[in-house]
């Protein structure tokens, strides 16, 4: 069984986003970029399934500008077997990403597609669900546990009230939540080896997918800033403040 994982190159998790002065977007020039943290978890899960013998091949796919190659090389260094880069300039919306991934699914016929539940740049949380819709397959979103049993997969999901487990017919789409696993670091030898692994380059046109945008960003602004308040000396002073707030009697 093949596994497909989708990865996105985004602003690094530890870098605060800064809005451009002309309100056209967030300034990404000279900013450290990394693999979306949820996608790292997706890659890790796929590799573990291969290591357990459940899957035979892990294919990483990314959609974006040429530099997304770096993100795919990271996935290959972690242990993915080969990669596909679909070149696209500028922001590609979730629906267009899902359409491109569907085309890759049609080509590759994976048993599972594992994606991060959301990208930390646009915070949309849509692609996995949309891919499931377009392929007509079930979805296990916000996964904290994935167990393949024959032709079915059990996915434990992080939901608002706790945890929920669903039983899905494969092929299926899974989106990874934070506690699915802890991704490995790529070792130096594996980083070197990854350079020799196959990375195919495609374009949206190769798949006949229209990626024109449906949403226009009119402006991007900074949210209202909270001002730091006061510090109190001790618990008694804190208690007095709570009284002022009407919390304490």
């Amino acid at each position, binding site marked *: 069984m093949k596994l497909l994982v989708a990865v996105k190159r985004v*602003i690094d*998790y530890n870098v605060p*986003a800064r*809005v451009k002065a002309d309100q056209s977007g*967030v300034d990404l020039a000279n900013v450290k970029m990394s693999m979306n943290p*949820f996608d790292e978890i997706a890659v890790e899960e796929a590799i573990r399934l291969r290591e357990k013998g459940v899957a035979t091949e892990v294919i990483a796919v990314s959609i974006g500008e040429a530099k997304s190659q770096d993100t795919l090389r990271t996935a290959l260094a972690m242990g993915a077997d080969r990669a596909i880069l679909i070149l696209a300039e500028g922001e590609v919306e*979730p*629906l267009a990403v*899902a359409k491109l991934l569907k085309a890759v699914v049609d080509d590759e016929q994976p048993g599972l597609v594992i994606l991060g*539940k959301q990208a*930390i*740049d*646009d*915070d949309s*949380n*849509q692609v*996995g669900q*949309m891919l*499931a*819709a*377009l392929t007509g*397959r079930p*979805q296990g*979103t916000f996964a904290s546990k994935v167990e393949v049993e024959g032709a079915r997969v059990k996915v434990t999901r992080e*939901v*608002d*009230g*706790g*945890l*929920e*487990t*669903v*039983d*899905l*017919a494969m092929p299926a789409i899974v989106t990874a*939540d*934070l*506690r699915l696993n802890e991704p490995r670091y790529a070792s130096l030898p594996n980083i070197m080896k990854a350079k020799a692994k196959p990375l195919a380059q495609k374009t949206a046109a190769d798949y006949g997918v229209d990626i024109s*945008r*449906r*949403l226009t960003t*009119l402006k*991007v*602004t*900074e*949210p209202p800033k*909270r001002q*730091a*308040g*006061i*510090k*109190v000396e*001790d*618990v008694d*002073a*804190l*208690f007095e403040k*709570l009284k002022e*707030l009407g*919390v304490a009697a």
Partner: protein
Amino acid sequence: MSVLVLAEFQGDTLKDTTLCAITAAQALGGDVHVVIAGQGAQGAADAAAKVAGVAKVLLADDAAYDHGLAENIAPLLVDLMASYDALVAPATTSGKNILPRVAALLDVQQISDIIAVNAPDSFDRPIYAGNAIATVQSSDAKKVITVRTTAFAKASPTGGAAAIEAVSGKGDSGLSTFASQEIATSERPELTSAKTIISGGRALGSQEQFHALLDPLAETLGAAVGASRAAVDAGYAPNDYQVGQTGKIVAPDLYIAIGISGAIQHLAGMKDAKTIIAINKDEDAPIFQVADIGLVGDLFQIVPTLTSKLG
């Protein structure tokens, strides 16, 4: 313009998140209808019919719609959307699971997690963990929208008298089944609708200490308990306690952050609280940059003392 709201409910009660989504739907203009999809959901439909501003309630009562399986509910909504211009749901784990599936089937680019309606086709939404707000305009003929519920007031649960119409869909898709759930039941208020939240971080040190210190304080204040990602990852608190960019977004009157350093991902989930109190031993912790009232010190001494003073 007519707008369909996908309701969330528990038993015969509509969740507050649904009331917030109805307010957002009203901001779009036009008639607001509510769809209740579930099993034995007549009570929830009756509740929805009483909400002020709701013109009609659609009740899809079918075992296939129990447990909110997206594979079964999405086709129902796609069919219903033939008569509507917009579909709105709260941006809860349920709404986030179902709506993009509907949007893709309708060939619509969904707008996630809106915090303001500027026009029927223009919305504000937070991006980059709330460090930026994007104002977007949709060119799709139909809109599919999830709503950040803390940004919209609750619609009044009374004052309406809508008709209830039974609808049916294709039922079970045969793709997925519900297996089991572990849902915590608590006497305390729900995190997303609580007026006061006590939230704990990794500095609590263990699951036992997390509960031993925070539960009595929460009890005293009638507060909900939340946690930082670090505390959840360390196993001190269950996943549904997590407040932050990818956990729950909260906006209580009072948020007390205890032993939480204040990573940007955590701030993204709570910085709209009216008043923030931070207790942390590190005076340089970023949480103090957003806190209205800060106390630097040892939480293991401060919290029990505070609890006994309040009790």
